[in-house]
C-alpha cells in the first residue's frame, strides 16, 4: 500500500460514529458546481470539460454558503440508512442536467444509497426532495425515478420493445402509445432492428442501451445507474462508456451513477462524491479529486503517494515521521502528495541533494506496471516508486534491498487538510 495516512487505521473504529471525523468536516458544503450542469441539446463532450476546469480548489472548500441549486430544482437529499452494524449517512445534492457519481470501494454503501433514492430501501432518517417535492414516503412505483440496474434486469420474457414499453404502460399510457414511445427510444439508442428480440439474444452493450432506454422511457426526473458498465467486457466497455456519456449529456434531469471504477466516474460524471464506510469522504470535480486526494482509497485510485502532516512554511512534519520540503508555503494540517514517478531511487546516499527530500527505505515488493517497475518501499517513509526496467536492473533491486528514495520539493504538492 503506497499511501499511509492515519485515516485507514482510525476509520474502522469510526464507522458507526457520528460526523466527528475531521476529514469529513467539509462534506455536504461543497456542492457548488451544480451550476455547471449541461443543458438540453448539447452533446459535445468538450463543453463539459470546460465546465469542469472551473472547479474550486479544495483550499477554497472551507464551509461557507454553498451555491445551492435554484430553489426546488434538482435533487436535495440526506440519506441515512441503518443496516445492522452498517450505517449509511450521506448528503447529496444535484442540479438538473448534472451527472453525479458516487465513487467508492465495494461495501461503501453506494448501492444502498441508490436503492434508497429509488425507494427500494426505506430511509432511517434524513430527507429526499426532487424538484421541490418530498419523496421520502413515496413508494418506488410513484417516484419519478428511472433505474439502470447493474446487470440490467431486463425482463427475460419480454422483447426489447416491450421491456421499454413496460414503464410507460405502467404509468398509464395505452398499449399502442407505450409501444410507439418505446420504439422511439429504441431508435434513439440505435436499436430499432432489435425491437422484437428477447434480452438473452442481445449483446452486453445492446442490453445496456435497452436498459437505459427502459429507464428513460418513463421520463424520470432522476436517473440512477448502478455500475452501468461493470457487466461489460473491456472492449465493449470503452464503446458503451462513450455512448452512455453522450446520452447522459443529453439528459436534462439529475443523473446519479454508482461505480467503483474511477475511470467510469471521471469520464461520465461532472462531480464525484467519494463514499467510504457509508460516509462522504470527498466531493468535487473529477480533476480536483484526482489532484488532491484526501484518503488512501482515492490516492490509490489516482496513483499518488499521500501523507498527512502539519505544515510550517515550506516544511511539513508528516505523521508518518519524517519531514517533507515543499514549494507551497502553508501552516497547519495539510496533505502532501506526489506521484510514484517523482521518486528516484539510489543505492548510495546521493550527494548535493539540496532541494531534495531524502529517506532511507527498503524494497518491500516489486511488480511490473505497464512498461515500468513499481517498487513498494518501507522504512522511514512508506511509499511507492516507479522506475524503468533498466533502472531497476542497474540498481539490482530485489525485496530487502536498502535504497535511498529522493523526491524534489517541486514535485510534491501540499494542500490544506
Amino acid at each position, binding site marked *: 500500500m503506497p499511501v499511509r495516512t492515519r485515516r485507514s487505521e482510525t476509520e474502522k473504529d469510526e464507522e458507526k460514529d457520528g460526523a466527528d471525523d475531521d476529514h469529513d468536516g467539509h462534506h455536504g458544503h461543497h456542492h457548488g458546481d451544480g451550476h455547471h450542469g449541461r443543458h438540453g441539446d448539447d452533446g459535445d463532450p468538450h463543453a463539459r470539460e470546460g465546465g469542469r476546469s472551473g472547479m474550486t480548489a479544495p483550499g477554497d472548500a472551507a464551509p461557507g454558503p454553498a451555491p445551492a441549486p435554484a430553489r426546488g430544482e434538482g435533487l436535495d437529499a440526506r440519506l441515512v440508512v441503518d443496516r445492522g452494524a452498517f450505517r449509511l449517512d450521506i448528503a447529496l445534492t444535484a442540479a438538473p442536467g448534472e451527472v453525479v457519481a458516487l465513487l467508492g470501494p465495494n461495501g461503501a454503501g453506494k448501492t444502498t444509497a441508490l436503492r434508497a433514492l429509488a*425507494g427500494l430501501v426505506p430511509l432511517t432518517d434524513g430527507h429526499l426532495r426532487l424538484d421541490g417535492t418530498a419523496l421520502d414516503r413515496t413508494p418506488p*412505483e410513484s*417516484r419519478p425515478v*428511472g433505474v439502470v440496474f447493474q446487470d440490467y434486469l431486463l*425482463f427475460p420474457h419480454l422483447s426489447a420493445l416491450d421491456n421499454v414499453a*413496460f414503464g410507460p404502460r*405502467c404509468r398509464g399510457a395505452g398499449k399502442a402509445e407505450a409501444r410507439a414511445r418505446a420504439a422511439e427510444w429504441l431508435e434513439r439508442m440505435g436499436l430499432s432492428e432489435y425491437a422484437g428480440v428477447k434480452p438473452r439474444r442481445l449483446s452486453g452493450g445492446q442490453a445496456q442501451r435497452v436498459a437505459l432506454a427502459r429507464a428513460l422511457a*418513463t421520463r424520470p426526473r432522476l436517473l440512477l445507474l448502478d455500475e452501468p458498465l461493470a457487466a461489460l467486457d473491456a472492449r465493449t466497455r470503452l464503446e458503451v462508456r462513450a455512448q452512455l456519456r453522450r446520452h447522459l449529456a443529453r439528459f436534462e434531469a439529475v443523473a446519479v451513477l454508482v461505480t467503483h471504477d474511477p475511470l467510469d466516474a471521471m469520464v461520465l460524471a461532472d462531480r464525484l462524491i467519494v463514499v467510504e464506510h457509508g460516509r462522504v469522504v470527498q466531493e468535487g470535480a473529477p480533476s480536483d479529486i484526482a489532484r488532491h486526494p484526501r484518503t488512501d482509497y482515492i490516492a490509490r485510485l489516482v496513483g499518488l503517494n499521500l501523507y498527512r502532516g502539519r505544515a510550517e512554511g515550506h516544511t511539513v512534519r508528516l505523521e508518518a515521521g519524517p519531514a517533507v520540503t515543499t514549494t507551497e508555503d502553508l501552516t497547519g494540517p495539510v496533505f502532501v502528495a506526489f506521484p510514484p514517478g517523482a521518486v528516484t531511487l539510489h543505492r548510495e546516499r546521493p550527494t548535493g541533494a539540496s532541494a531534495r527530500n531524502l529517506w532511507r527505505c527498503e524494497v518491500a515488493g516489486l511488480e511490473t506496471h505497464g512498461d515500468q517497475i513499481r517498487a513498494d518501499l518501507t522504512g522511514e517513509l512508506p511509499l511507492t516508486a516507479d522506475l524503468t526496467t533498466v533502472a531497476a536492473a542497474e540498481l539490482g533491486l530485489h525485496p530487502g534491498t536498502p535504497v535511498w528514495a529522493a523526491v524534489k520539493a517541486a514535485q510534491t504538492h501540499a494542500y490544506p487538510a
Partner: protein
Amino acid sequence: MTGARAQGPAPAGPGPGPHAPPRRPARRTAGRRAPLPLLIPAAAGLAFLLLPLLALLVRAPWRSLPEQLTSAEVWQALRLSLVCATAATVLSLLIGVPLAWLLARTDFPGRGLVRALVTLPLVLPPVVGGVALLLAFGRNGVVGQWLDAWFGITLPFTTTGVVLAETFVAMPFLVISVEGTLRAADPRYEEAAMTLGASRFTAFRRVTLPLIAPGVAAGSVLAWARALGEFGATITFAGNFPGRTQTMPLAVYLALQNDPAAAVALSLVLLAVSIAVLAGLRDRWMTAS
C-alpha cells in the same frame, strides 16, 4: 437403470476393467462394476416397483377391455375424475399461488409455522383430512352450519365436496413447488418493475408470474395428478355416489369387490393417465441430474 447399465458390457470406451485409468473423474462410476451389496438391493427395489405394474398389464382383460371401457359407468367416473381434478387444480392455483408468493416474498411473524401448516396435508393421512373437512364444512361443522343456515349451501357428499377434498390434499404440492420456484427467481425483477411504475401486484402479474410459469405448470401437473388419485379424503368427505362423487379411484375400489376385471380395466386407464403426466414432465424431472 444405472445398475443394469453398469453390469452390462460397456459398448464403447476403454474397457470396463477394474484398472481403467481414472482420467477425468466422472460423476457416475461409469465403466466400473457396481458393488454387489448395492446392486442386489437396487435390482430388488426396481423389481418391486415395476412388478405390480407388469402384473396389471399381464392380467388385464385385454379382450373385454373395449367393452369395459366404453361402459357408461366407467365414463361417468372418468369424466367426474377429470372434471374434479381439474377444478381442484384451478382452485389450488387461485389460492395456492398467492399463498406461495406470500411465503416466498414476504416476512411476517410465524411464517415458518404457516409454512409447516401448509405442508401438513402432505403428510396427513387423507382419511384424517376427510374427517377434518367434515368437522369444518359438514352440515354441523364449524363453518358448514353457517353455510347451511345462511346460504343453504351443503358441501359434504356433493361434487363440490369432491373438489374441496382433492384441493385440500393436492394444493400443498402446488404451493411447495411454486414457492421453490419463486425463491429461485430473482426478486430484483420485481424491484425493476416497481421502479418503472408497476404496483406490487402489477409486478407480480406482468413480471413474476411469466418468469415462474414453468414452475407453476409443473406444480399444477403434480397437484392435478395427486387430485386425480385422491381416495381417502374424498370417500370420507364426499362419499361414494356414482355420477356425483364416485371418482375413478373410488370406482376401482368398489369394482374390485364385485367385478375385478372392471377394476383392472379402470386401473389401466389411471396408469395410462399417470404415464402421460410423467411424459409431460420428463424435461423437468426425469433429466434432473
